[in-house]
């Protein structure tokens, strides 16, 4: 993998929309498996929000925000 690839390789926090480095999130335990897919979060608050109601963030009218 080149440096550029590494830079491009980020995930989006589905709750707040922030760009997340998956390795960093994994190291902090800020990941969740949902419907066969891994999701990454900026912090505990977003992870808990997601865990409360994961469907909510996938609705078309969901606008990611803090």
């Amino acid at each position, binding site marked *: 993998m080149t440096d550029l690839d590494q830079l491009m390789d980020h995930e989006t926090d589905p709750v*707040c929309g922030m760009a997340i480095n998956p390795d960093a999130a994994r190291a902090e335990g800020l990941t969740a498996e949902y419907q066969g897919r891994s999701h990454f979060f*900026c*912090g*505990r*608050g977003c992870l*808990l*929000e997601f865990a409360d109601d994961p469907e909510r963030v996938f609705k078309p009218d969901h606008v990611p925000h*803090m």
Partner: protein
Amino acid sequence: MSTTNQPELSLPVTGMTCASCVNRIERFLNKADGVTTATVNLATERATVQFDPTKIDRTGIVQTIQAAGYDVRADAGTSEAATEHDDEQRSLLVQALAAAGIGLAMMVVMLWPGGVPWSMERVNVWFLVPATIVQFIFGRRFLVAAARGLPHLDLNMNTLVAMGTLAAYGYSLFVTLFPEAVRSAGLGMETYFDSAALIVGLILFGRWLEARAKGQAAGAVKALLELQPRTARMIRNGVEMDLPVDQVRVDDLLRVRPGDKVPVDGILTDGASALDESMLTGESLPVEKSMGDRVIGATLNTSGSFVMRAEKVGAETALSQIVAMVEQAQGSKAPIQRVADRVTGWFVPAVVGVALLTFALWMLLGPEPRLPLALSSAITVLIIACPCAMGLATPTAIMVGTGKGAEHGILVRNGAALEQAQRVTTVVLDKTGTLTRGVLSVINVIPESIDERELLSLAAAAERGSEHPIAEAIVRHAEAAGLALPDASTFEAIAGRGVRATVDGRKVLIGTEKLLDESGVDVDAPPTDPAHSPIFVALDGRLAGVITVADTIRPEAAEAVRRLRDRGLDVWLISGDRAATAHEIGARAGIGADRILAEVLPGQKSAKIAELQANGAVVAMVGDGINDAPALAQADLGIAIGTGADVALEASDITILGEDLRSVPNSIGLSRATMRTIRQNLGWAFGYNVVLIPVAAGALFPIFALLLNPALAAAAMALSSVSVVSNSLRLRAFNPA
């Protein structure tokens, strides 16, 4: 700022990492019924809540935060609890004095020489109001507690007090309200209002003394808590500010100035100083600390200013854990307590039976006036039998004993450990880190071809790059000798065998005999002391000398062993080292060759302990809490020494803070003193009841015409509780040495 008069609460929230955490907690709180506004601050980690106290309280708010997935740090609650305790104590004393005063005044009127110029009927009516106040207001706690136990047939000392006083009060009430009926039955107008009031007063007084004694015993924990500094000087973005210590988070940088206390546990990152750690370890000399050293919260910075990084805060700090453990131990039950509980369990119903029997016998066989005498005797039995003293016998002694231990750096896990410690017959001491310091030191420098200082300086220069304990010992020794160490230009560590380096252009090879031999060096050195480990030094392919290193025995080891023996204990040494090393250390500590178990692998230590146990020994194992954990667990009593309190607390029954081996005999002495006190207490409490119940029932009446009255019984009972508590408090004077 709020314009309402609603109460506001500021709670320290833990577990927040980001702004979304803040939003989440605020949302949960603002949704909660009764919360007017809630704001959460990530930087200070506090939630500020304005609320309607009729709808929600502190607990409800904490639960809401917990429901959101976070927690509230327990803080500041302790002082509130302490105030409550003080208020409770004061109200007990006031009620006790008032009740006893009223009872005493009534008794004076009743017993006035030559009688008072009023009829007894009239006096009884005057007594009715104060007696009722004492019985139902001051004495309410006994009635409520007794009534609560009744449905479950839980008969306890409150039952005895309630029954006794209600019987006295009830009979007196009947006499007062229906004097004609009493007169026609041929009885006098005497009432027992005075006795009932005096009993309530005296028992309340006993409770007050008990509460006070408990407060004093808990002083050990309070003293520990007071060690905790209130503020910390935090460095954030280059700004230094003083903040409450509960706001310090892991990884915060903190400045500690001379005279300050270290706020939390952490690592020294900049500067150097000497810390007085005596409050936690008992070590009286200040300990030098420099970069990378661990510093412990609540210890005192005596000299330089330094910066530390917080590693453990709040409930995680060594001090908090010690406090938690002492509190737990003080509240724990020793197995001997179960005996007392069992006795109390059948004791109360038995006493009620004896009281009923007493009443029946006096009614059938007693002299006239039968009813008052029968009633008075039955009440006296109920009052005198109150097993308070029995209930106090064990817990007060455990509380004082474990508190006393904590003062001397001896942390006892629980009452069972304390009881076990006095049964120990055999003490097994681990060698490394227990009898010895667990750190290697240079013993001898034996030059072959160059002079001693040059040998040491070259060896230390070569070893400086290594982190091996042997290398550290050599470098430390050279530095202590004031030698200047040249820089090594090349360095190579040979795992488990030694190092190869170039110093001042000369090739230095340091290591085992085998390493040098394989490198073609002629290793022909005179034999060294078998208890020491020889390290060979070659210079440009020729043997330059030998340096011997060994672990050194603790200076107080021999004294500690002698004191254990003086207490009649069999002392053994266990070690994984070679027999020669173990015997050498054993001889210096005064442990005989027949009591040394050498070359025991760590995993076999517990088997060796089991062997001793199979031969009938009750074994205490003394070792560090990490490597010796299995042996500590196998032993009847595990004593951990020389390890961080946090680790050792888990693995051992008794943890010794600091490194003084004399704490081992001290802890056994303390446990023996505590158990002796418990036995005295139980003996006294039980004996008192066995002797006085028959007297109260009237056993001495037929011979000596001697009969106790209920008020005297209450005084005797209070005295017995007081004597038990005082006996326990005597332990405070225990001097382990």
